[in-house]
């Protein structure tokens, strides 16, 4: 009898311990903090509430880290009594919130780009599941000194990055903007008297010179993520064909990619690998590996944005490394040198439980205090007109100068975003444009084949649009 009892007990323990696995789905780094109790005293634009309010935010943790978000959440809770912010911040935030969204329980506020690998924001856009936030920008800014949209850098709110359906209605809010281009080591260039290239011919001539004098390769990029090359492709196409060429591509028009304006640009990109200017092994490297190689002096240039400074802060570099950025080469002397803007986005899901508080949080993020915190903790600049000046005292000279390349001669800023895909489309446009680059760099595909495969993808998208 005793044996049976023991056996039964053991079995019970087994069953109960296996149930321990059933719990609420974990947030990988959840941060909650208590808010003060009692009557809320409203500050300039808070809601007047008597109960505790909760705001659930989901933040992508990328090259800028999490120090800014921790600080701004704390500040928001201090200035808004009765509010608790539950933040989930992670590099894999999309995987964490996707099940929540599918279950009809989305976070109130999301900081994630539509260009991310996970495609989450893209699918929210496709399914029209984001909240219209035009009223936030038409309304007052946090300090109460004017309309919010006047504070934002010109041109952003009207672009498809913020108004994805082309009708001027804003669904995504700008987070930060920064230039992306060719990053290089200023010290190496000054010490060796290398001249920064303007045209593609200059670029390749410089490559020969550097190979002879120093031995390092001209160029590397984040091999297994060929999407980074958008920082070269779009500005180069804009330089060659102007904004009409870019807008036609954004609209998936027939013949917008496989034509005599775009093909020469594609050929220049192919030339980097075909003529030996590419760091060997690049196509198999991930982003940190490629960036490390460049920092160690094995390549002269890498495509990247200003976040690289923060992202690679602890990485070993060659002696005296100093960050600097130069625009992408152009085909002919005198062409406008375009610089692709990196603009990250905020959004509020349509089914958010607490949209008013989320909008208030959004407004708060554009305040001077928040902008200063961002500069201080992430060494980066918000997408507001005054942000660069506020940031000046916090960011290094190198980064400040990188932001200044817009002021160089004959440059222009470029915001590139494809129009929203039809909801039944099975194509990932970014993949269709950039994945072939690996084959082109390996010599397995010609530029004509690359251009034609993009055209085929565009044709399918146009067909899906008709069928919708």
């Amino acid at each position, binding site marked *: 009898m005793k044996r049976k009892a023991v056996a039964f007990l053991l079995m019970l323990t087994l069953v109960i311990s296996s149930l321990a696995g059933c719990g609420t789905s974990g947030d990988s780094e959840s941060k909650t903090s208590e808010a003060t109790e009692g009557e809320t005293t409203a500050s300039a634009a808070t809601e007047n509430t008597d109960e505790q309010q909760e705001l659930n935010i989901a933040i992508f943790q990328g090259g800028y880290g999490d120090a800014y978000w921790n600080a701004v959440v704390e500040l928001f809770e201090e200035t808004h009594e009765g509010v608790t912010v539950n933040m989930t911040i992670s590099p894999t935030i999309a995987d964490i919130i996707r099940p929540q*969204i599918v279950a009809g329980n989305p976070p109130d506020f999301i900081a994630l780009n539509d260009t991310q690998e*996970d495609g989450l924001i893209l*699918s929210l856009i496709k*399914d029209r599941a984001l909240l219209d936030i035009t009223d936030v920008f038409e309304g007052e800014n946090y300090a109460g000194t004017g309309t919010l949209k006047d504070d934002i850098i010109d041109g952003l709110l009207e672009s498809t990055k913020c108004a994805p359906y082309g009708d001027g209605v804003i669904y995504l809010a700008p987070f930060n903007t920064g230039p992306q281009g060719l990053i290089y080591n200023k010290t190496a260039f000054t010490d060796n008297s290398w001249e920064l290239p303007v045209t593609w011919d200059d670029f390749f001539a410089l490559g020969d010179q550097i190979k002879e004098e120093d031995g390092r390769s001209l160029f590397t990029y984040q091999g297994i993520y060929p999407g980074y090359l958008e920082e070269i492709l779009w500005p180069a196409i804009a330089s060659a064909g102007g904004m009409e060429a870019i807008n036609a591509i954004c609209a998936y028009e027939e013949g917008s990619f496989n034509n005599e304006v775009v093909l020469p640009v594609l050929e220049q990109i192919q030339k980097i690998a075909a003529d030996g200017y590419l760091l060997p092994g690049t196509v*198999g490297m991930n982003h940190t590996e490629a960036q490390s190689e460049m920092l160690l002096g094995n390549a002269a240039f890498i495509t990247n944005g200003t976040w690289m400074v923060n992202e690679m802060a602890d990485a070993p570099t060659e002696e005296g490394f100093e960050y600097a950025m130069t625009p992408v080469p152009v085909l002919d002397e005198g062409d406008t040198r375009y610089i692709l803007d990196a603009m990250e986005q905020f959004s509020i899901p349509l089914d958010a439980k607490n949209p008013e508080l989320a909008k208030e949080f959004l407004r708060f993020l554009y305040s001077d205090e928040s902008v200063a915190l961002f500069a201080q903790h992430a060494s980066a600049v918000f997408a507001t007109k005054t942000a660069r000046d506020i940031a000046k005292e916090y960011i290094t000279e190198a980064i400040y100068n990188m932001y200044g390349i817009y002021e160089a001669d004959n440059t222009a800023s470029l915001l590139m975003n494809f129009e929203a895909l039809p909801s039944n489309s*099975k194509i*990932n446009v970014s993949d269709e444009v950039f994945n072939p680059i690996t084959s082109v760099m390996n010599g397995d595909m010609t530029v004509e084949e690359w251009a034609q495969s993009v055209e085929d993808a565009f044709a399918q998208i146009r067909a899906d649009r008709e069928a919708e």
Partner: protein
Amino acid sequence: MTKKPKLFIAICTLPALLLTIIFMLVPMCNAIYLSFTNSTALSSNSKFVFLDNYKYMFGDKLFILAFQNTLKLMAAVPIITLFFSLIFAFVLTQSKLREKSFYRLVFFFPSIISLTVVGIVWSFVFNPTKGILNHLLEILNLSSLQRAWLGDAKTALWCIAVALIWQAIGYYMVMHVAAIDGISNEVYEAAAIDGASSFAKFFRVTIPMLKNTIGITYVLSLSGTINLSFTLSNVMTAGGPNGASSVLLQYMYTQGMRNANYGYAMAIAMFTLFIAIILAVISRKVTGNKE
């Protein structure tokens, strides 16, 4: 004669039955249903589209590429895996090595490591600058063979195959050892008396008597390849240079999780299931299953 306690049996099996229905049958039926719709992750407006997903599938060049890659893996990996596992099993049972149990441990070990870890470890092996493979080639004076293994469209898929084979040999080896142990020693002694070499013993005695087991392990290996290739393809190459190492389940994952096209992803899953069933039926017939 004692009466069978039917009620008691029914109650005991009920929980397991419920779990199976809820977590296996219902999702499966849902998946079949979804494959005929165009639903997406946030599907507030999914429509029944019949065979549209399937029609699109056969015209989708990425799908065809994934399908071809999967077929290549299914052709190569099970055969090579079983070949080596049979040889190792034979050596371990027939030879008189003292370190048998040590070898058994070493060969079996890869199959119990998490597959993601296997993928990451082999990614490092194939790394163009820091990997031991290129380093080894350099030491052996074969530098001309060095390349970016996972970044080259011609080799990426076979790198995944190598990792799959390495991981699976031990698993099937253990099964074959058990099967060989079932062959009475007298048969081998009789063969030895007739003057058979080890080679002949392997091909004339072991393989024929193991036919049934080999049939079973072949089917298992096929289904294992289809399933496990997803993890390795995801971890090692993320679908490889421009889809060169994408496999069916990995493409399904991309469409389902990244592009949020649940309906289309389910169509791909149904197709994969269909292929797996057909291959299993064929291979059982070929290995002459008497049951």
